[in-house]
């Protein structure tokens, strides 16, 4: 792995960690943005996919900044289990992506995809905050798009475009819960 690839994986992991460890809009948005940058960097040999997913991730992160609690909310009291989750996810994703799986694509992309899926799902399953749930779903969607890009099937460009569009649309959904009307 080149230095660039290792740096990209670390940036994506940091993004996942911010997503898992943050309870307010700035931390969550930074997590999505860092993950998108790391993911785009590992996809450097597929420029259209890197550009589409990177820009969509940054767009979704910018949209996440518009609502939710106006703080960083990173590492709130009692976040030791989440910190452990980040470390364990990072180690396991690196091990599985580099040593167990032989495809699709190069190892750094596989690691970043695994990080997006695992940390996004872990955050989604454990949070009660809407902005964090939306950001987690965004990260998983970007990972799906990257997996399609490196799998290189005939429909890959369509799936990458759909994933980029979905990431932006998930960013458009507001962080405020709406009350029920009627039954």
């Amino acid at each position, binding site marked *: 792995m080149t230095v660039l690839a290792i740096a990209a994986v670390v940036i994506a992991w940091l993004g996942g960690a911010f997503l898992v460890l943050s309870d307010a809009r700035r931390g969550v948005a930074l997590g999505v943005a860092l993950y998108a940058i790391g993911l785009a960097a590992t996809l450097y040999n597929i420029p259209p996919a890197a550009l589409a997913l990177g820009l969509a991730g940054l767009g979704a992160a910018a949209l996440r900044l518009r609502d939710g609690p106006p703080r960083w909310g990173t590492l709130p009291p009692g976040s030791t289990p989440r910190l452990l989750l980040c470390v364990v996810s990072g180690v396991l994703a690196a091990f599985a992506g580099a040593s*167990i*799986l*032989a*495809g*699709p694509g190069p190892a750094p992309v*596989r690691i970043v*995809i*695994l990080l997006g*899926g*695992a940390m*996004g*799902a872990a955050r*989604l*399953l454990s*949070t*009660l*905050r*809407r902005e*964090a*749930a*939306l950001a*987690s*779903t965004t990260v*998983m*969607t970007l*990972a*799906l*798009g990257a*997996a*399609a890009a490196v*799998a290189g*099937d*005939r*429909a890959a460009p*369509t*799936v990458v475009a*759909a*994933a980029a569009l*979905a990431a932006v*649309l*998930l960013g458009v*959904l*507001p962080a405020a*819960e*709406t*009350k*029920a*009307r*009627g*039954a």
Partner: protein
Amino acid sequence: MGPELALGLPAAGAVLAAVLRRRPALALLCGGLLGLAGALMMALLAYPAAQASLLGLSLPAAPRGLLLVSALALGLVVALAPPQADRVGLLAAGLAGLAGLAAVAAAPDVLAVGVVVALLAAGHAALPGRLPFPTRMRAPGLAVALLLAGALLQHAGDAPVFARLSALALVLALVAAAGLVPFLPELDPAEPASASPVAWTGFFGPALAVALVARIQPGLGNDGAPVYGALLVGLGVLNLAWGTLGAWLGEGDVAAWRYSFLADWGLALVGLGVLVPDGQAAAYLVLASVLLVRFPLYLWARPVLLGRAQPAMGPSNVLLAAALAGAAPFAGFSVRVLLLRAATEVYWPLALVLGLGMLVWLAHSFRLARTLGAPRGRAAVGVVLALGFSVLLGVAPATFLTLGGL
């Protein structure tokens, strides 16, 4: 550009219905017309001339057939909704769901299905409701992660273990996407109908599952197929047992209805898992009956479930109990015959287990039929139509099977 229109017209209808929400009559008219046009386009896709697509999309026959059934079910529940129901909300959510389901059906691979499921589930979870967004997003979110894992494992290498693990992840994704045991979402009885997890399992689930199966099966290979089949059968039996016992003994009538959906889904999963034509046909029919019979009846039972009307046990309720129990000549009977035949063909002790589940099934049917009270007006027309569809599925299943290319 047939597939694009089949996808775009319901989406445009959903947007228009949502925008015109303050003028309900206009919203229903515009949304209804666009939804009808979308359904017609889906029907026309049976002809090769209409299948040409600008974006290279294609809607396979089985999911397309169930999409048409979903459109019919949506028309039924919106046109004949109980008086206090939010019909515009139902129509907008249903049309958006139809567009999403058409996108799932047209998705070229499992990863694309994951993208659409993420968006569809987020849209559904964002509907005004009583439970918070993250709680409603958990099961489909997990499904998205499992679809990603399954797709990655499909490309992970030539070792058989990857194919088996991929099949495991994809089957769990299917079950999570439909909101079944062991990924049962939280239920609030007072949740609006369109935002309820029952609507997800009863309306979005069937076409989603059939579309997902159409994408999963070609990539299974010889190593993945046995794991796929065995897991589906196992989870099917689990849902059947959980559903029948829960609907019989569960606390609260809303929960009983939700469990009854699980029982139907149990039969569908077993049918999909046995991998013989009779099983596939049974699964298709039971999912069609969920859409056309159980889901509309659940909506018409809501006035009693929400305490706005009194439960009753008149002659019509006895007939409804027979339909819900799967007695001849209603839908469940043909499903049971096909499924038992398929199970006997594959592994006869499975037929015994299924037979036992079907016997326990009888216990909850009267409980559910009671909650429909004494239907009047639109609800009475709806109940008659649902019973009519149930009879049609029971005596002429070939009509629906032909629609799905089976």
